């Protein structure tokens, strides 16, 4: 009896190779394919278990999306049609030019295989790529049986498990991606053509500039501009406060005013005088209690990007690229996840055990296994597809590049911290009433560092110890003075803050946030500048004149409209993102969502056309005349 022939297709060549390694036990033949130097076909035998049993397997891959959506030729050049037509012009899907060899390979292989197993990444995008692969395979063999492997890292046992418990492709998720692709194409092309054609001629500096619009790009730019304006328009003000010092047992205790500060000097002076008139302060509360600093939550993509940019001195796009590479090499789990809770079924101790050989944290891992292990905290998010990012295998530092080492170390330390105990301490709060005013002092002694020993990114230090105070006792403060200060402007936006804002406002997905930031940099809407020097240097995001003109111009275009629609604020995009989730869950149909969004954006488009003079005025003001905000 002939063995079943199974075709496997992964999302990237490296995954194909890693999976082939595991399934074949290292015994496979490699065939080159014509027309592409990266994609290979690996041929080997593998037993998938019932019902297929022993199979002859060909494992290959694509390189990301196979196809793209575009307008037919007659709509393609910028002056071929009024941009508004693009909202309803026909579109067609075709294989990308540089992917034809890959597509052909799949079609050809499908002809003599009975079944197809999709090994694309398990997320929305992966599901869509899987659908593309399936369509391509059906071109070669209409009767091919299609299955999907569900996996989230390339560790051997996990891959073998996945191969023996195949599932179906998730059509709904693929549909949601298709909807998003269509919307991005139509809306992006229409607005980009309109803006570029109308605004490019206004100044020579724009001659080569494509003024693109994207429903994620604009709100992202909006955050940067908004913060920039807050900094620029800021007015400093003087404030006053009262500080009280008491020396006891040679310890100088600073008591902080419960009002913190006030913006009325006469009132503060009067309040201080009434403190002094009272002469003695009275201890109203002494509260000594155990306190703890919580260990971090399991790692999500957004958190990895924010922490990465903060502590590893890499930008979010770079962090993701490196994490991606670490995943492909099998060292960490899939780095695109929203989940911040570990599944009950996962064997955490086994994962910790893998870290024992490490020079830096092997000892700590040993301690966890001996007795210090604690169940990780569970966050509130679960994308039902991937676990939190965690190390899968130990990676010897010699096999990693400098950047890979940094990201890998962070992922491991974070994971070990999650499996540790909270840091424990003892805090003392003393509250006193002085005149009619309340003051307080706080002391902290760190007793057990626990997770802090491995998670070097968190700081929690003991403060000066407080002397003894008894409730009800009176004392005369050593000093009571007025201090003054000035309010300071907010800082320019940093990349981790921007990611936080995008996340909170539903702009992009964890998978695409870094790309959107990168895109508006490429478009010269924003620039990254270094502030401060040495170790304290931070990179801040500052909009260019073009970026400012676009956002302020657009705010004028929509000023005064009912419902205040806005392309520079996140509301519309957030709505779209929520509707994509509806498509995924099956509660709404793809065509519906697409149509409704197109209708809404078409209206905004028409409005933009009508009030184009507002945008032009902003360009005149900020770019041509170099006016200040």
């Amino acid at each position, binding site marked *: 009896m002939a063995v079943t022939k199974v075709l496997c297709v992964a999302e990237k060549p490296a995954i194909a190779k890693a999976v082939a390694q595991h399934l074949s036990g290292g015994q496979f033949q490699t065939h080159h394919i014509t027309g592409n130097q990266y994609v290979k076909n690996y041929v080997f035998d593998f037993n998938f278990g019932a019902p297929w049993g022993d199979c002859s397997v060909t494992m290959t891959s694509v390189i990301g999306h196979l196809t793209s959506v575009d307008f037919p030729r007659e709509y393609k050049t910028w002056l071929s049609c009024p941009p508004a037509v693009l909202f309803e012009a026909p579109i067609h899907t075709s294989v990308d030019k540089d992917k034809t060899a890959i597509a052909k390979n799949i079609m050809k292989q499908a002809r003599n295989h009975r079944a197809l197993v999709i090994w694309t990444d398990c997320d929305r995008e992966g599901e869509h790529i899987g659908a593309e692969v399936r369509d391509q395979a059906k071109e070669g063999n209409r009767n091919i049986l299609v299955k999907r492997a569900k996996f989230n890292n390339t560790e051997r046992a996990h891959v073998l498990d996945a191969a023996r418990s195949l599932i179906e492709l998730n059509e709904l998720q693929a549909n949601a991606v298709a909807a998003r692709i269509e919307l991005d194409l139509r809306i992006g092309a229409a607005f980009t053509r309109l803006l570029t054609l109308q605004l490019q001629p206004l100044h020579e500096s724009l001659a080569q500039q494509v003024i693109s619009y994207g429903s994620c790009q604009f709100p992202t730019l909006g955050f940067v501009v908004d913060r920039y304006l*807050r900094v620029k328009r*800021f*007015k*400093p*003000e*003087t*404030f006053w406060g009262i500080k009280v010092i008491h020396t006891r047992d040679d310890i100088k205790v600073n008591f902080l005013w419960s*009002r913190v500060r*006030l*913006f*009325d*000097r*006469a*009132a503060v*002076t*009067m309040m201080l*005088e*009434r403190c002094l*008139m009272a002469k003695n302060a009275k201890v109203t509360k002494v509260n000594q*209690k*155990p*306190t*703890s*600093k*919580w260990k971090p*939550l399991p790692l*999500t993509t*957004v*958190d990895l990007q*924010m*922490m990465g940019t*903060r502590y590893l001195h890499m930008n979010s796009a770079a962090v993701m690229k490196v994490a991606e590479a670490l995943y492909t090499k099998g060292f960490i789990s899939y780095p695109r996840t929203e989940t*911040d809770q570990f599944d009950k079924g996962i064997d955490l101790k086994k994962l910790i055990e893998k870290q024992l050989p490490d020079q830096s944290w092997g000892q700590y891992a040993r301690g966890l296994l001996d007795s210090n292990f604690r169940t990780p*905290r*569970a*966050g*509130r998010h679960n994308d039902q597809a991937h676990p939190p990012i965690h190390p899968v295998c130990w990676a010897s530092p010699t096999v990693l590049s400098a950047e890979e080492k940094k990201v890998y170390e962070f992922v491991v330390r974070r994971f070990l911290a999650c499996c540790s105990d909270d840091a*424990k301490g003892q*805090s003392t709060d003393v509250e006193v009433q002085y005149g*009619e005013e309340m003051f307080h002092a706080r002391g902290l002694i760190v007793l057990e560092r626990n997770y802090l020993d491995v998670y070097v990114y968190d700081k929690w230090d003991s403060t000066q110890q407080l002397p003894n105070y008894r409730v009800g006792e009176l004392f005369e403060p050593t000093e009571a003075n007025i201090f003054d200060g*000035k*309010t300071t402007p*907010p800082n320019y936006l*940093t990349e*981790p*803050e921007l990611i*936080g*804002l995008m996340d*909170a*406002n539903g702009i992009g997905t964890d998978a695409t946030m870094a790309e959107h930031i990168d895109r508006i940099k490429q478009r010269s809407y924003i620039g990254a500048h270094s502030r401060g020097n040495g170790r304290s240097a931070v990179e801040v995001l500052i909009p260019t004149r073009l970026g400012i003109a676009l956002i302020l111009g657009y705010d004028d275009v929509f000023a005064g409209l009912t419902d*205040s629609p806005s392309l520079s*604020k*996140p*509301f519309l995009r957030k709505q779209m993102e929520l509707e994509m989730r509806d498509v995924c869950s099956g509660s709404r149909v793809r065509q519906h969502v697409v149509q409704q969004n197109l209708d809404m954006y078409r209206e905004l488009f028409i409005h933009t056309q009508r009030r184009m003079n507002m945008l032009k005025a902003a360009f005149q003001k900020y770019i041509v005349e170099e006016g200040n905000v």
Partner: protein
Amino acid sequence: MANLQDQLAAQLLHTKSLPVSPTWLNNFLSTSSALQRNIPISALTQTALFRILTSDFRESLTPRNPASKLPVDIFDPTVQERRLPSSIPVQVLDIEDIGSSLWSQVEAIERVERGEAVRGREIIRTVNVGDEEQEGTNGTAAAGTGASVNGNARSDSGGPHRLILQDAAGTRAVAIEMSRMNGIGINKLPIGAKLLLWNATVARGMILLTPESVTLLGGKIESMDQAWKSGRKARLLEKVTATGGENAT
């Protein structure tokens, strides 16, 4: 008629400590004469009180009662401390939040103007990356989110507030909210709202407002309140640019 007017005046003075101007009361009774016939005195008192609270005290109260007036030199900063007589009715002419910077108040107004505040909190959320204060006492196992929301400015009008008050004779005084009071706040306490001061302390020319020394009577003067609201942003802006925030009283 005179009898009724005296009765009303006595009622308002004894139950509400409001020395109503005879002229005003006379006027009130004559304009509501159609109503008064079968109406019990208690209901009529209520109506009068309501009118008084929405009136200007300089018209509705008598300025002749020395026990219910502010001293004319109340602003004198050389007086360290003094007590006001037992009960003085006053109305609010201005209210300011001295716990937040003028600029942060301007920004808050602008957010409302842009319609962002009503769109939910996300857009105004400040994400303090990294310095999440996740100190919890033992046993509180509530899961914190990754980034804590730790509003960098006290966003609501958190106070304390500085008020300008006016008595029936038109004398004005600055008052400071010394301990938090529920009814006092911007957009909470309208201009023209009425208060009763009970043996309030005055320190360096400022009346100290505490729950023991103030009764909020409510009411407002509609026209003044409208004007105050519509001019608030402009006043804040003017102040913040003119003085650079050196806003000593």
